[in-house]
């Protein structure tokens, strides 16, 4: 199944894009989807550890274990720095 992945700030620079589509196995969980994104965009973890990244599904932070469905919108970004 295909899902959309969004990148912002540092992750957009590293992925070379703000937005991509990736193919995931069915079923996929938030963990396996996150791993698939890191595998496809290795630059995201060149200079940082995976645990320094945040991951959202349909504009909500993942808690872990969520099922991913076709057409879900995923997003990978660094710890926020607004304010």
């Amino acid at each position, binding site marked *: 199944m295909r899902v959309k992945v969004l990148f*912002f700030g540092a992750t957009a620079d590293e992925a070379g894009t703000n937005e991509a589509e990736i193919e995931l196995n069915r079923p996929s969980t938030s963990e396996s989807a*996150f791993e698939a994104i890191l595998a496809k965009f290795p630059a995201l973890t060149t200079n940082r550890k995976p*645990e320094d*990244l*945040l*991951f959202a599904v349909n*504009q909500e932070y993942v808690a*872990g274990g969520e099922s991913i469905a076709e057409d879900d919108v995923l997003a990978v970004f660094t710890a926020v720095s607004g*304010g």
Partner: protein
Amino acid sequence: MNFEITNEPLDVGEIARRVVPEECGATVTLDGYVRRFTKGRETKHLVYEAYEPMALKEMEKLADAAKEKFEISSVGIVHRLGKLEIGETSVVIAVSAPHRRAAFEACEWLIKELKRTVPIWKKEVYADGEVWVEGERDGNAGVPPA
């Protein structure tokens, strides 16, 4: 509107005045703006970027949580995006309450939480380079900060 993300300059007083119910007697406002020097290094300007729809949802969640936690009446949160010069306001949080103590506490809590959970990022632009600032992280991969 109480939650907003905009590329336009912010009018702090106007934002604070959006939250004045009749049962209230005080509004506490945090105006966060671009500082020229951070740890001795000179900033030329900042650039802010957001995951806008998610950021608005997270702001609303924060305001709801603050209303549960403190005796307050209204919350307004506005964050600016794009290029900001020194001294320009990046964020305004205004909290009104019947009594000022709760307004102070809630406003301070809200800015701390906003910096932790609302998906907005800051790029510091120096004379000799630029860097996307990353917040503090101590959680599991992908999972939001505790």
